[in-house]
Structure formats: C-alpha cells, structure tokens
C-alpha cells in the first residue's frame, strides 16, 4: 500500500547531491523547507486530533476517572492497574471479546464468500452488467443509519415483511424477534440445534453490508487474470469447476488474504452496525459497543479506556501482520 516505486527521481532543478547529507545544496534545502511547510498543517491536525488523543487514552486507562470528577483530574493523577484488573475479572468483557471474534470472523468470511460468488457470476459481460455492478455496490455506500433502520423494520415482529412472509408462506408458528432474541431451538432434519438468533442476524447484516467491498476487489483482480491461462486449461479439457479450482483460485488467493485482514480489522472494531441494530442487547454486545456504554451510560472513563486499549492492542497485532506480510505483496502485484 506504500508508494509503488521508491521515488529517487530528481526533482525539478535539484542538484544531484546525496540526500540526507549534512552539506546540502541550496536547492535541496529549499525543497526540504517546501516539503515540510506543505505537510505541516496536515501533520498538526492529525497529531492534535488523533495521535495525542490515543496517547491520552493510554493514560486514562491507568487512572480512576469518571465523567463526574473529570474537571479535577490532572495529568499527574494516581496511576494504577485497577481498571485492567476490573476489566479482566468481569465476565462481561471476556464474553464481549468472544462475541466480537465470532462476529468478525463469520462476518468477514461470509462477506468474502458472497463477494467471490458475485464477482464470478458477473465476470462475463452481458447486457446491463454495468448497472448490475453499480447496484451491487449500493449496500456498501448507503448511510448506515438508513440501512439499519430498513433492516430493523423488515425484521420487525409486528409488521415486518420478513415475519409476514414467514408466517404466511413458510409456515412459521410465530413471528421471530430476530434482533431481540438471544437464542432459539431450531429443528433441522430431525436434529435440534440451539442457535444465537440475534448474533446470526447481525452477522447476516454485516455480510450483506460489506460483500460489495469484497466484490469490488475480486472483480478488479479477476480482470487482471490473463485470458490465455483460462484458454490453455480449456483446450486441455479442464471443466469449469476445475478451471476455477486450479487456475482462478490460486490467482485470487493473495487478494482474498488482503481482503480478509482488512475486513477483519474493520469488523473487529465496528460500532455503528450493532449499536443501531440491537443496541448491544440479546447477546450481541461487541467490545466497541461495550466501551461506548461504559463511557456514556456509566461515565466510567477509566474502564472504558482500558477496554478500548485491549481492543486496540489486539488490533495492533493484526495491523502489524497486515503491514508486514500483505502491504508489500500488494505493491508487487
């Protein structure tokens, strides 16, 4: 994801002196100054609005701060590990962490699977394909508040269209409260399973919302696969599924890997979707929603920061993996 090629090309009029040398030509000095002055405003706003707040969160996580005693608390407060002790000893946090993991893994996996199916189905040109492609992207670009509101209305037990059809045509005994029921027994082929209703619903929403993103990336990659590969396999008598398995899939795997990491990172700390669909109830409280509740409902800034920090640390590992293994590979391809 970094610059495609290291830019060593000389800049207009610059003298060919080695960079970073102590003795710099006046031109190189002027370039230094110009570069720094152009980037400084951005740097200031990013540092003030993002870097400093992140550092502050780290400090807050080690202090006993509530919204009520905020005004009296200073930088030299009492630092302790008690927030972390409290967070890790409460069963709610570990449960939230597990729910977050299940939600992210399932949501990411389904989104990529559906994105792959859509990309393959729309691979060959047909009349109106451009329009279908554009339509496919709408769930991803539409405002989150609007789409969650439509989903909650569609799934509403009283007048939602899904429950109406379910009870009318699919023979459901009763309307299913998709977003407010923790779990239910489902009989399938004579076996009875307990399924977490609300969690599955938010995972389905996540897959619907973000499969266009996977679709977009995979379509771009599919277009870059040389046609000759496919032709050669066809001449050799490979069937469509074989061509997919042995020709296309290996070509797509690096893209799928990048997508998995990116989508996982974003789903892992996503707040909006679950907050708007269930408010974190019925067994769907992910860490981000929990942090928000600690911050606003309880006003417990210290505990909220500690939990956000744990979330960020786990995430930092994933970002590190992403940068180390995938960011460079993408450059090459």
């Amino acid at each position, binding site marked *: 994801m*970094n610059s495609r090629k290291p830019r060593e090309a000389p*800049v207009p009029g610059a003298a060919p002196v080695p960079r970073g040398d102590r003795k710099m030509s006046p031109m190189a000095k002027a370039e230094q100054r110009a570069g720094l002055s152009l980037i400084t*405003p951005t740097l200031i706003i990013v540092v003030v609005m993002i870097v400093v707040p992140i550092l502050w969160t780290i400090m807050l996580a080690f202090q006993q701060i509530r919204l009520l005693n905020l005004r009296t608390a200073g930088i030299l407060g009492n630092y302790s590990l008690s927030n972390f002790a409290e967070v890790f000893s409460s069963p709610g946090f570990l449960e939230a962490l597990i729910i977050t993991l299940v939600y992210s893994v399932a949501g990411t996996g389904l989104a990529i699977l559906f994105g792959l199916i859509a990309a393959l189905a729309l691979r060959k040109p047909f009349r109106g394909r451009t329009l279908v492609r554009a339509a496919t992207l709408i769930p991803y670009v539409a405002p989150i508040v609007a789409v969650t509101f439509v989903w909650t209305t569609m799934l509403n037990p009283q007048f939602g269209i899904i429950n109406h059809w379910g009870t009318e045509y699919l023979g459901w005994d009763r309307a299913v409260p998709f977003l407010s029921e923790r779990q239910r027994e489902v009989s399938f082929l004579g076996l009875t399973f307990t399924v977490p209703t609300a969690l599955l619903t938010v995972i389905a929403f996540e897959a619907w919302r973000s499969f266009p*993103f996977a679709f977009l990336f995979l379509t771009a990659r599919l277009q870059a696969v040389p046609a000759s590969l496919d032709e050669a396999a066809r001449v050799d008598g490979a069937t469509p599924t074989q061509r997919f398995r042995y020709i296309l899939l290996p070509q797509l795997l690096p893209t799928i890997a990048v997508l998995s990491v990116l989508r996982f990172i974003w789903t892992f700390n996503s707040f909006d979707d679950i907050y708007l669909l269930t408010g974190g109830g019925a067994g769907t409280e992910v860490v981000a929603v929990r942090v928000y509740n600690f911050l606003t409902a309880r006003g417990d800034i210290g505990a909220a920061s500690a939990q956000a920090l744990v979330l960020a640390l786990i995430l930092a590992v994933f970002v590190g993996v992403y940068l180390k293994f995938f960011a460079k590979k993408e450059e090459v391809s």
Partner: protein
Amino acid sequence: MSTEMQTRNGHTASSKRPWSRDRIEILVLTWLRWITIALILVVTLFPFYYMFILSVRPISGLLQDPGALWITAAEFSVDTYTAILRSPSEGGQGFLIFMRNSAVVALGTVFVTLLLSIPGSYAISRLQFFGRNKISGLFLAVYLFPSILLAIPLFVFFTRIGLRGELFGLLLVYVAQVVPVSIYMLRNYFETIPMSLEEAAAIDGASRLTIMRRISLPLAMPAIISNALYIFMIAWNEFLFALLFLVESRENWTVSLGLSQLAGSIEIPTTVLMAGSVVLTLPIIIIFFAAERLLTEGLTAGAEKG
C-alpha cells in the same frame, strides 16, 4: 456460447460424449449464474425498494397489509415527507434543519480536507524532505486504527473545552479522520503524472508554487473531484462521532443522528421515519450513480473506513 465452442472443437475425449462432466457443469453453471445474478439484484435492491414503498404509504395501510409490495394510487401520499421535513414548531420533525447541518459539516469537511491534502500529497509524492516516509507510515496507521479508541479522549477533551454540541468540533474530527485517506489517494494519482511536465516548467523558470497551481493541479483534477465526492459521502454517512458530540443539542443534529434518535420513539409512525431514511439515502445514491466509475476506482484505491 462456450458450450458450442466446446462441441465444435471437440478437443478432448470427454467432451465428445453427449453427457460429459464438462457439458453438465457448463449447463448447470449457466443456469446457476443467472439465478445468482437475479438473487444479487433482489438482495441488494429490495431493502431500498421497501424503504421507498413504506415512505409513501400511510401507517394504517402498512399495519393492515404488511406484505404489500406495491402501492395503489389511492394509498399513495407524500404527507410523510412534509411531516419529516417540517420544523418542530410547525409540527414536523425538522429534517430540513438536519439536512442543512449535515450539508454544512460534509461540505466543510470536504473543503478543509482538500485544502490540507492537496499540498500534503503533492509534498509526499514530489519532494524529498526529512521524515517523509515516517509521516506516510503514520498516516497509514491512523487510517487503520479504530475510531472507538479516539472516541473516548475526544469526548472528554471536547466536553472540557466546551466544543461538544458544536458542528465545528465535529468538522475538526472528520477532517483529521479523512485527511490521511485523502492524502493517500491523491498521492497515488500524483505519482502517475509524468515528472517531465514539471521539469519542463521549472526549466522555463516557473516557481514551485506556479508549477503546482498551473501544471499539477489541473492534471490531478479528476482525482481531486472523486476524492471530494468520497469525503462528502464519508462525512454525510458518519454516525459515531455525531452521536457522541451532538446528541444533547437537537438543533445541531445531522440527518443520520436525527433518524437514529427518532427511530426509537413510539409517537412517530414508521412510514414517516422511512421518508427520513429516503431523505438521508437519496443524496448518496445520486452522487454514487453520477460518479460511479470515479468512485469505484477511489474505493479500491483508498478503501473506505468501515
């Protein structure tokens, strides 16, 4: 098409037999493909169709027949839209004011972000200066970091300096969040512009500022416009920070926040709120279809923060 080619060429022994694996697979996949395409269209578009249908029906009609998929001429009414758009003093929900707030914040974010990111991305792609790579790395890290982590200190900080509840505070947060993405996208574009053009201008004696304004900026215009639309969409759709900062001052609510806050209330009919959803979604859909090609390129290059 491919079936014909297979039989005509008849390259392999298997494809000569009438029901080879190849032919069966092709037949099945051809059907599956069209079923999948139809399914994709239904799944992606139905919620939006449903949104529109509900927004022009009276609530009584919805409760009587929740399964109706079209509207009769007798039922059709746009009263829901007047109810949602009017200001509270006139008995409405004040969405017109929310739209103005959203537009102010989104356009302000676009303007300030571009003001920062155009020179910033130019510097990163064209100029050698101390710490350039570190700054690029910092921006990428910022882009991937969770916004909930920022939410806490910014909430505390804005409470303390009294900017909470102000649209300006929200604008600052949005700018800080999108500036790294914007710089990243624009930088990629600047790097595709040949250096020789700028060199030629430099030889003719043009100063750095003149080169930027007269050569680089016009060439980067397509990227800048798509970038602007993309930033507008992010700012218009944003929810978490609007919720944290503005929830207590109703006159400053954005459309997203307004809809989410009113969605919980029992007094407002669902159909009226659906009209609100349409009002919230429509600008985005219009922008998206107007600039689809530009935006999809931007999405793959920059990848929206989700």
